C-alpha cells in the first residue's frame, strides 16, 4: 500500500518497543460489540493508481465540460480563464500541504499571502478590512447578518428580492432556530430593472432593522446605485450589507464601499478559482474598521519579531471559537485558504490595469451578445444596466428550452424555473452570463441553437 511507509518488520519492532503483543492490544478501549474483525464489507480492496485513475476518468468523461462547449452559465459561479501560473503556485507543497499558520515563525509564507489577500479584497470591495476568507458567498452572507445583529443589537434583516435565491435559503435555514427575523419577498421580472426593490427597502428600513441585504449586480444581472439605500440605512441606524457574486464586476462598477456599505460579502470564485461543480469556493468578507472586533473568521495582522523584523501573525483571535468557544463571533475554523491564495495570485497577475481591462472586456462582450439576442424574435432582454450577465424573457417556459439547448451542445444559461421552482411569474426567464471565455463562434452557436429549438 503505497501511502503507508511502515513495513511488517517495522510494525513488529514497534509493537515490541511499545511492549504489546499485537495491534489489537492498542484498541482495548473499544467495546467488544463494536470491534470489527475484518475489513468492511461491500467495499473494494486497495487499488493501483492506474486503475483508480481509469475509474475516475470514466466518471469525469460522463460530464459535459464547460470548456468544450459554448457556455453562458453564471448565476453565482463564473467561468473565467485562470492563468496556468495560478495552478502551479497553489500546488507548491509548501502552500498546499501546510496547516493553518499556528506557528508563525515557519508559516510566514501563508501569513504574508493572507495579509496581501486581505489587502487586495479590502481594496476591491472598497472597505477598510477584509478577513482571511469564509467558506463561500452564501455562508459569508449569513455571517454578515449575524454580525449586523451583534453590532446593532437588532434582529430584523431586510433582504432584497435581488439576492441570489440560494443565498436567501441559506440565511433562512440558519435563522430558523434563532430569533433573527428575515424579511424578504419574491422578485419581479420588471423590464429594465428586474429584482430591483431599492425603493421598497428604503421605505421599509426602520428602527428595528439590523441590516438591509442587497446584491449588486443582482441575481438578474441588474446593476444599481446603492448610495440612497446606504443613506436610508444609516439614518435608521441599520447596516447596509452588500453581496457581490461576480467580483470581476468590481473592475468596472463602483464598489459597495464607495456606495456606503457597512459590510460587504462576496463569492470570490471568479478570480483564480474554477467552477468545480460548486465547491470549493471562496467567501469574501469585509467591513469597516470600527466593527472589526465583531467580524467572524481569521484575521492576519502585521507585527515584528524579536529582532524587530516585520512579520505576520493570526490576530484578534479572541473573537474565535478556539478561544471564546460558545461566545465566539462564529464557529468557523477551516476556511478557504488555498482558494484565497489562488484568488490572490490571479489578482496579482491582473493588477489594477488587468482587472479593469478584464472587466471592460467582459462587459463589452455581454453588451454585444445582449444586442444580438435582443434581435431574435421571441426573446426579450429584461436587464437594462448590467455587467456581464443579464436576464432574458422567453415566450415560453425556459427550463425545457434550456434542456433542448443542452441537447444541441450549448450550455446557454440558468432558467429561473430552476432557481425559483414553482414561481410561475418567473418561469419564462433565464439568466445568461458572458465572460472572456466565450468566443464569437460561441455567440454564433448560441444563436443557431436558439434558432434550432425555435419550436417555442
Amino acid at each position, binding site marked *: 500500500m503505497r501511502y503507508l*511507509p511502515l513495513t511488517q518488520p517495522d510494525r513488529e519492532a514497534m509493537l515490541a518497543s*511499545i511492549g*504489546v503483543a499485537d495491534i489489537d492490544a492498542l484498541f482495548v*478501549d473499544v*467495546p467488544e*460489540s463494536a470491534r*470489527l474483525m475484518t475489513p*468492511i464489507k461491500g*467495499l473494494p480492496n*486497495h487499488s493501483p*493508481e492506474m486503475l483508480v*485513475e481509469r475509474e475516475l*476518468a470514466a466518471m469525469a*468523461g460522463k460530464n459535459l465540460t*464547460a470548456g468544450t462547449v459554448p457556455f453562458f452559465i453564471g448565476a453565482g459561479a463564473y467561468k473565467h480563464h485562470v492563468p496556468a501560473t495560478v495552478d502551479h503556485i497553489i500546488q507548491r507543497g*509548501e502552500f*498546499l500541504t*501546510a*496547516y493553518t*499558520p499556528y*506557528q508563525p*515563525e515557519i508559516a510566514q509564507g501563508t501569513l504574508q499571502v493572507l495579509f496581501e489577500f486581505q*489587502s487586495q479584497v479590502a*481594496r476591491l470591495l472598497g472597505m477598510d478590512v477584509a478577513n482571511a476568507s469564509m467558506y463561500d*458567498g452564501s455562508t459569508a452572507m449569513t455571517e454578515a447578518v449575524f454580525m449586523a445583529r451583534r453590532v446593532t443589537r437588532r434582529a430584523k434583516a431586510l433582504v432584497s428580492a435581488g439576492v441570489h435565491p440560494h*443565498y436567501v435559503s*441559506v440565511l433562512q435555514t*440558519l435563522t430558523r432556530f434563532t430569533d433573527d427575523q428575515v424579511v424578504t419577498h419574491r422578485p419581479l421580472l420588471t423590464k429594465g430593472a428586474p429584482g430591483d426593490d431599492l425603493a421598497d427597502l428604503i421605505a421599509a428600513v426602520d428602527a428595528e432593522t439590523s441590516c438591509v441585504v442587497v446584491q449588486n449586480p443582482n441575481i438578474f444581472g441588474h446593476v444599481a*446605485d446603492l448610495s440612497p439605500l446606504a443613506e436610508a440605512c444609516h439614518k435608521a441606524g441599520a447596516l447596509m450589507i452588500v453581496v457581490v457574486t461576480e467580483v470581476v464586476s*468590481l473592475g468596472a462598477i463602483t464598489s459597495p464601499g464607495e456606495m456606503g456599505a457597512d459590510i460587504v460579502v462576496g463569492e470570490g470564485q471568479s478570480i483564480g478559482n474554477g467552477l468545480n*461543480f460548486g*465547491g*470549493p*469556493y471562496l467567501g469574501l468578507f469585509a467591513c469597516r474598521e470600527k466593527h472589526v472586533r465583531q467580524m467572524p473568521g481569521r484575521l492576519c*495582522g502585521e*507585527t515584528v*519579531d524579536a529582532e*524587530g*523584523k516585520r*512579520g505576520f501573525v493570526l490576530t*484578534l*483571535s*479572541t473573537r474565535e*471559537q*478556539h*478561544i471564546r468557544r*460558545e461566545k465566539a463571533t462564529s*464557529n*468557523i475554523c*477551516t476556511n478557504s485558504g488555498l482558494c484565497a*491564495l489562488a484568488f490572490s495570485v490571479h489578482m496579482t*497577475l491582473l*493588477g*489594477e490595469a488587468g482587472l479593469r481591462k*478584464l472587466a471592460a472586456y467582459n462587459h*463589452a*462582450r455581454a*453588451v454585444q451578445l445582449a444586442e444580438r439576442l435582443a434581435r431574435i424574435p421571441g426573446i426579450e432582454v429584461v436587464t437594462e*444596466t448590467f455587467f456581464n450577465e443579464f436576464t432574458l424573457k422567453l415566450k415560453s417556459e425556459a427550463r425545457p428550452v434550456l434542456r433542448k439547448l443542452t441537447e444541441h451542445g450549448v*450550455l446557454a444559461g440558468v432558467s429561473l424555473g430552476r432557481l425559483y421552482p414553482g414561481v410561475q411569474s418567473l418561469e419564462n426567464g433565464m439568466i445568461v452570463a458572458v465572460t472572456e471565455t466565450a468566443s464569437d463562434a460561441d455567440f454564433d452557436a448560441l444563436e443557431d441553437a436558439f434558432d434550432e429549438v425555435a419550436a417555442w
Partner: protein
Amino acid sequence: MVMNNQGRITRLPGVEAMPGETWTGNKALMLEEPLLFERGSIDRCGVDLPDVPVVADRLGGLARLAPIGLAGLSEPETVRHYTRLSRQNYAIDLGIFPLGSCTMKHNPRLNEKMARLPGFADIHPLQPQSSVQGALQLIDRLATWLKLLTGMPAVSMSPKAGAHGELCGMLAIRAALDDRGDDRRVVLVPESAHGTNPATAAFCGFSVENIPANARGRVDLAALLARLGPDVAAVMITNPNTCGLFEPDMVAICDAVHAAGGFVYCDGANFNAIVGRVRPGDLGIDAMHINLHKTFSTPHGGGGPGSGPVVFSAALAPFAPLPFVRKTSDGFELIEEMQASGSADYDRSFGRMVAFHGQMGMFVRALAYMMSHGADGLRQVAEDAVLNANYILAGLKDIYTAPFAETGPCMHEALFSDDFLHDTGLTTLDLAKAMIDEGFHPMTMYFPLVVHGAMLVEPTETESKASLDQLIGAMRSIAQRMLADPDAYRASPHLAPRRRLDETAAARRPVLNYRDEAA
C-alpha cells in the same frame, strides 16, 4: 520595521552589513520577500487580454472611476513572489507535521490530478443534470463509502468543513426536536471538546453546558448521567476524544442520552484512529461529521478548503439538508427542493445550508484516496496511525509528562504536558519553538484545555519509523538540553525565517490591511 522596494531590510544609512548579515537580508537560500504592494504597482500586469470591443456601455453611470489600489506584477515577478514566500512555510511535504487533532497526513498527488480532470473541475453547479451525471455518480459513490465506513444509513454532503458539519448535525437535531414539538435547549459538551463544538451549539440557538473529564481523561460518565434530563437536547462528544483516548463508555452514553430523549452528536475529527476498525454507527450515535481534509487526506492548503460530510442515524436522516443526490433507474438526480423530491421522506429537511452542493473538488480527492486504500488499506490506516502514536508515547514518556499514559494505550495521538519542565520556567511554547530550530513543525500546543501546558502529538500513519525515531530523538535531546541549560531555550527559534513574533502588539494595534507609509 520597513522594507524598501528592493526587498532589502532597511538599515540606518551608512551602516554596512555586519558579519553573518547580508546587504540584502537574504541568507543564501532563505530569501526575504517584500510585500506585493512594495514590489508591484497599479500599472504592472501579468496577463495579456484581447482588445476590448467598442460598445456603448450599459453600466448605468456606475463606472468605477477612483483608483482601486491593486498592485500588479508581471508573470515572472508573480511566480517569484509566491515561490519565495512559499519557502518560508513548513509543510507535510517537508517533514512530519504532528499537530494533534489535525491529522496532517500525506496528500497524494494523484488526488490533485483527479480533481483537475476537466470533467470534474470545469463543470458548473447549475448545469442541467443530464450534463453532469458523472459528477452525481461520484457524489453518490463517495456517500456510499462514507455510510459503509461509519455504519450509518444516511449522509449529507453539503458541509464545507468540520465546523460546518457540526452545524449541519445540530440543525438536524434542532429540526427533529421541533418536529416532535420538543423545546429542549441544553447541549452538553465535555471540557476537552474543540472550540467549534460549543460555538456551533450556540450558533443554533442552544445553550451550552460543560461536562467534566475524569482522571483517566475520559468523559465523567457519572457527571454526564447526572445532568441528563428533559432539558437536554444533545450531547456533543468527540470519540476518540481530544486527549487521544477512546471513550470506553460510548455505548452507555448513547443509550443513556437516548433514554433521556436526547441526541448524540459525535465530532468525527479523530475518525482516522478507528476507520475500518470501528463503525461509529455501532456505538449508537445520531450524527457525526467527517473531515475529508483529515481522515481522507484532502490537503489543508494553509487553512482550507475542507469538507465535512455528516452521517446520520435513521432518526435524524429525514431532517438532513438539501440538496442531495438520489439514484434513479437510469442515472442520478439532484434533489434541490423539498417539493421536487416527490417523497414524504424528504419534506422534513431543514433546508439548504450552502449555495451549491458541497465541496466537489474535495469529494474527488477523498474518493481517489479511499479507492486507493480500499477497505483493507483503510483498516491498516487506523492501525498504523495508532501504532505510530503509541510508539511516540513509549519513546517519550520517561522524560515527558504523559498525563494519561498509565491508563493504557492512546489512540492516534499522544498527549503530554510541560509539568516536567516546571522547575526550568520553560513551557510548552518554548519547547515548540525549539522544535522549529530542529526542523520540525511542533505539536498542537495548549489543547485540549483539560491538561495544563498540553502537547498533543499526532503523527498519522504516513510517517515512517525512521521519521518517528528522528522526532523522538530530537524531542528527547531538546528536553534534556532544556533541563540542563534552560536559559539557552527561552528565545527559540533562532534559525527560522523569523524569531518569535510579537502577538500582543499585533492585537493591540491591529494592522490588517497594507497602508503605504509614503502615501
